[in-house]
């Protein structure tokens, strides 16, 4: 976890439990907070904390460091600070649990794990199939490498909001994420 503060602003990066994220917001009630909420539903946080002025999703970002960001209150200084830190913020107006890219990608990753668990194909061949059959920039396991905990956390979060069975993490993924 990293915090960057300036003036009256706090930017909070990294993965934390939902409880810890809320604790950070609670203990910085006097600040305008912009927070990485990749694995959670920003709507829930906005409704609980009026000091949360924006949220972003940086946990799945690539070498190109492009991240989705949503502003409740736009602050150009936050954008320039993120740029200073090497990020390329891409603004969105859609508030959705897991934002747009992480939510879509964890579902693709989860399905790849289901297929792997059912021994449909190897990791290598699933990566290959998605890159050379439908032009994905990366294979599902290349995206998830080292991020399995974020993937299961977001899936569990989606599962608690939409308990239809769509978002149940694959066993082989849970084992990998240590959940």
């Amino acid at each position, binding site marked *: 976890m990293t915090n960057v503060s300036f003036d009256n602003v706090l930017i909070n990066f990294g993965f934390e439990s939902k409880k810890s994220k809320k604790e950070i917001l609670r203990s910085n009630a006097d600040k305008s907070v912009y927070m990485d909420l990749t694995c959670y539903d920003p709507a829930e946080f906005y409704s609980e904390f009026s000091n949360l002025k924006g949220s972003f999703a940086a946990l799945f970002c690539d070498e190109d460091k492009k991240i989705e960001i949503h502003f409740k209150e736009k602050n150009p200084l936050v954008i320039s600070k993120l740029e200073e830190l090497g990020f390329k913020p891409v603004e969105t107006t*859609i508030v959705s649990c897991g934002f747009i890219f992480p939510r879509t990608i964890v579902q693709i990753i989860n399905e790849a794990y289901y297929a792997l668990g059912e021994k449909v194909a190897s990791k290598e061949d699933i990566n290959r199939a*998605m890159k050379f059959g439908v032009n994905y920039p990366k294979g599902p396991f290349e995206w998830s490498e080292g991020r399995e905990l974020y993937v299961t956390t977001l899936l569990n979060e989606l599962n608690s909001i939409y308990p239809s069975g769509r978002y149940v993490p694959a066993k082989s993924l849970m084992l990998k994420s240590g959940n």
Partner: protein
Amino acid sequence: MGSGIAQWFTQQMCQVELVDNSQEQLQKALESIHASWDKLVEKKKLDSANVAKMKSLLSIKSLDAVSKDADLVIEAIIENLEIKKTLFKNLDAYFEPHTILASNTSSFPIELMAEAVSDKRKPLFLGLHFFNPATIMKLVEVIQGKDSSLELCQKLYTWFDARDKKPAFCKDSPGFIVNRVARNFYGEPLRIVETDDENKMKEVDRILKEVGGFKMGPFELMDLIGIDVNYSVTCYVWEAYGQEPRFAPHELQKQMVDENRFGRKSKRGFYKYD
């Protein structure tokens, strides 16, 4: 799709016979393959001597005139199980015992089609699923059915791997790899936008391209593929997995199909095309 597959194999300097019921279709396919090669010579992507050789290697045949001693036959006809099974039964009887029979199906279980051939042929029966356009897309799913010989699948994998293809070995299961794992590239964005809201769709397409690095967004891609086609694949995979919620079609897909909004081909899909 058969002509793209035939073109690719000929480019590997294999002797290829392209077969169809319609002589007219065959003639058209041959002309278009020749034209494509001539263009590639112009662009200096192919050597004219090689193209002359390829033209001599590729011929068009009616089914009763095709060489009985072919090493490999790839079926790429209409996606109808009964028609495919009838064809495979005839192919099994027609070709020599060593001929490998493969289906380019994107949906039917290899096991079901293999029922149509003799027990002797079963080990030589497998799935070879190409992606459109076959001369450009590098993936071939090499699908091992219940009775397909593992050794044969591995041999073909190695053969493709040594050429201009990226093979992926997979077990016989609904949607194989791509049509299964790619489902939620559409299903999840549909649930993010929820309703027929063009601005939201534009935004989701933009983010997935810009942040995710995808070449096309899900909504523009569904419009290109055909929303009806994409919807029917979704329903097929969903049903094949016992209506598993991970594959459930979205209301919006059905709404589009019901309103004849199929995408680019009907000038109206998620977006408008004039």
